[in-house]
């Protein structure tokens, strides 16, 4: 390592990554796709609304949500029925108009409601947990223009932890896509 490189890394602050700001989603999609093809792995895009093509450009794996919700829904349904069965048959049997203790058709409604409740709660809690929320602090908020990510600007971030990341090389790479600005993200 030459002395010049050492001095440049020690004087510049450490980075979380580089952020390119785009005006249209099409620019972002193109940049994300090219960056991934160029070998960048730790990429993320920030958009004011969900855009399917961006997820495709980043080649995100399938969401785990459906599996979580299915499992929790089935557990909720089983739990709902067992609650009815356990209370009405086992620990508190009560003769109501001569109906059998295990009058399962009457237990369908609580079973159904417990299925939906467990599945819906797991969808929300699962989504929040998988996304690592709530997360009040994140380095991207340090970029002044980033507040428009929740309104009308589209951002591509290459994180510094990417093996291919190089402060100058990556900046040059991002500039090729004609962004409004490429900013350093302080950690």
């Amino acid at each position, binding site marked *: 390592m030459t002395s010049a490189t050492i001095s440049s890394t020690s004087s510049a602050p450490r980075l979380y990554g580089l952020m390119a700001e785009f005006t249209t989603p099409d620019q972002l999609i193109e940049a994300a796709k090219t960056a991934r093809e160029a070998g960048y792995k730790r990429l*993320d895009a920030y958009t*004011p*609304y969900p*855009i399917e093509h961006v997820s495709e450009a*980043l080649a*995100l794996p399938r969401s785990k949500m459906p599996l979580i919700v299915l499992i929790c829904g089935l557990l909720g349904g089983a739990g709902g029925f067992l609650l009815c069965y356990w209370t009405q048959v086992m620990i508190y049997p009560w003769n109501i108009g001569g109906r059998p203790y295990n009058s399962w058709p009457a237990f369908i409604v609580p079973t159904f409601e417990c299925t939906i409740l467990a599945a*819906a709660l797991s969808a*929300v809690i699962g989504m929040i947990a998988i*996304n690592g929320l*709530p997360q009040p602090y994140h380095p991207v908020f340090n970029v002044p223009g980033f507040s428009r990510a929740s309104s009308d600007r589209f951002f591509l971030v290459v994180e510094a932890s990417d093996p291919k990341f190089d402060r100058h090389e990556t900046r040059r790479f991002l500039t090729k896509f004609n962004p409004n600005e490429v900013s350093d993200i302080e950690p």
Partner: protein
Amino acid sequence: MATLDLEGRQPVYVPPPVVLAPGHTPETVTRKISSIIIAKAPRWWYVAFGISFCFLMMFLTAVTWLFVRGVGIWGINIPAGWGFAIVNFVWWIGIGHAGTLISAILLLLRQDWRTSINRFAEAMTLCAVACAGLFPVLHLGRPWLAYWLIPYPNTMGLWPQFRSPLIWDVFAVSTYATVSLIFWYVGMVPDLGTMRDRAPGKVSRIVFGVLSLGWRGSTRHWHNYESAYLLLAGLATPLVLSVHTVVSFDFAIGIVPGWHSTIFPPYFVAGAIFDGFAMVLTLVLPLRAAFGLHDFITARHLHAMGKVMLATGLVVFYGYLIEIFFAWYSANHDEWFMMKNRMTGPYWFVWAALILCNGLIPQLLWSWKVRSSPLALFLISMSINIGMWLERFVIVIVSLTRDFLPSSWAPYRGTIWDWMTYLGTVGGVFLCLMFLFVRFLPMISMSEMRTLTPGSGSHGAQEAAS
């Protein structure tokens, strides 16, 4: 008939078939919707909130007196043990159906006109369900023991009776309230992030920041978010259909004439959607004018809602007619007597008003011109709101006051406390919550509206433009 009008001449004004007025960009959508919260509240808001606050105080007065004296202050007595409280409960739950229907079912059906009204309708659902939930609890007599309805291990060794429709109700309504709440909140998280980024004051920035969970619009997050939202919609769809079905079981499982009928579940669900859309229109039309939201809630929305009301109204009207047929065809003496009593007995005018409000007046919605007129739509939806309340009155009161044994017949009348409690929820609890909602939270989904703008690169924009 309105249809004849169209034969002679062409309609004067053709509404653009758009769900978002032309010329909008993501930025203008964000600015317009968030400015309602950021700007100072208009004077009418204070006046309107003040009036509804007075209604809220009236409600609290009535409820306090109820807690002091018990349910004897209401008009209920044997044989009519279910009075206004149950009428109001069913009415409010019905109103609460539009929100989840618009958010969930219309999302799955890809009806993009839902986008500008779903947030608002969901909030209306929550407020309506909050009002609905109050009534059975107040009706308990010992409302402080309401938690006995929840299954939990206790020292008394008691458990709820799961064969009873009243326990089904507890499960259905509490699940519905919970799922509606989380659906509404999850849909709002990205918008709360927007509000955090645009809020002028430090306190509001912190509050919105906490509520938004630190949402930053990452594609990795959107990816799971979209999946979760779609799953919630899929779960809420059977739920919304089940809730009023279960409420109708409260009646249909019983043997009282006029209640014991298999038509109740579908007819209650249709009635709920009918009434829910009517209440959405009742609230949206004045707010659209007050906040100048004509770009987002266009003629297309009014026509679509009018058509949904017309279609569900016809199902409800069919229900009324088939109930009469059933009563006759069953050859059951008590059923047929109940039906004759309903139409010609001491409460005949309630039934007649019901047919007028729910059956005849909504037929005006066939007319293209009526569906284009906000005033006409407002008046029709008011008529439907009243009509649906009358329907529940007819079902509950008329059947109970004259059942099998003439010696036990007795008339029923709501007392001043009944009316204060009912109007207190309408003008007080419900409207207070709605006024607070439109003032402090984004009442139209900004993140979803952005997808309707041209060049947004998402599915909605192409449909909106076509």
